[in-house]
């Protein structure tokens, strides 16, 4: 992808940004626990996470295309977890929580939209998700 110099530079900058973020995260974690990380570790971890994001992004795109969609949705993300049940469970919980929050918000903000909001969201995605797993 990064064939031209511009692309390369952009990639570098994105990596720097990710590096910084992950460095912060590791630092914060290490404050409360008895460990520390070498800068090299953070660099390597950045590289790993960057690659993982890149792969997952491409996966997501391909999943949605395979499903005949143009927009990536939560089903595609759930499909990322197909090889790891525990992970799938964690994300499922997260998804349910998000969905519940959404339904509730709509209910609160627009009382009239209640019927439309919650059932459609929950129904549509749950059904599809089951079919795929």
């Amino acid at each position, binding site marked *: 992808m990064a064939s031209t110099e511009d692309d390369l530079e952009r*990639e570098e900058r*994105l990596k720097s940004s*990710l590096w910084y*973020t*992950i460095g*912060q*995260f*590791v630092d*914060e*974690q290490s*404050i*409360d*626990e*008895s*460990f520390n*990380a*070498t800068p*090299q*570790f953070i660099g*390597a*971890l950045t590289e*790993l*996470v960057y690659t*993982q*994001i*890149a792969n*997952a*992004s*491409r996966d*997501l*795109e391909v999943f*949605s295309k395979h499903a005949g969609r143009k927009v*990536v*949705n*939560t089903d*595609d*993300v759930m499909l*990322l*977890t197909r*090889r*790891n*049940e*525990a*992970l799938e*469970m*964690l*994300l499922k*919980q*997260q*998804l*349910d*929580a*998000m*969905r*519940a*929050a*959404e*339904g*509730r918000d709509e209910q609160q903000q627009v009382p009239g939209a209640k019927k439309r909001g919650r059932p459609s969201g*929950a129904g549509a995605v749950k059904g599809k998700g089951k079919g795929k797993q």
Partner: protein
Amino acid sequence: MPPKAATANNTRRKAPSFKPPRPVDPAAQPSTTAKRAPTAAASRSTGAAKPPAAASNSRFQPATTIISSDEEQDDEFDLPSDLDELMQDAPEERPQARARAIAQSSPPIPPALLARLFHEHVEEKNTQITQGAMDLFGNYIGIFVREAIARAKEERSKAARSGERSGGFLQVEDLEKLAPQLVLDF
């Protein structure tokens, strides 16, 4: 689960939806969902990533966490009194609650950065992604990062036990050892 959570929360819900997360959230979990986290990955992350996850994240993207934080979290920040009430029944179930908290606390990668990286890497420039999917993806990557760190710590303590080097600092070698399995698992 959504209906259950909704009912559980109706009683103490009275809030604007925007509240920055704070490290207290583990306390809120037991009532609705703490029982559900007994698997390998869950307990692994419990052992390793622990409470600071929630604490540390709050600093990163206070403005954007609304989407990924779930209602229990939201609720907690409504009122101090709620908090006290929740704390009372919390202690026994802490570890599981923690696993849950980790799963739902804000991801270590800011959503904006993640979105940028996503669009950078898809083949077609006009590929779109829904907000919900993006949040979930952020969660996925967040779990990935935490898991990597947790496993690195495990490797480190193993190395320290066998007396190779002095412990304390996570090394690139630790990451090298865990990377293949980690990537297979995700």
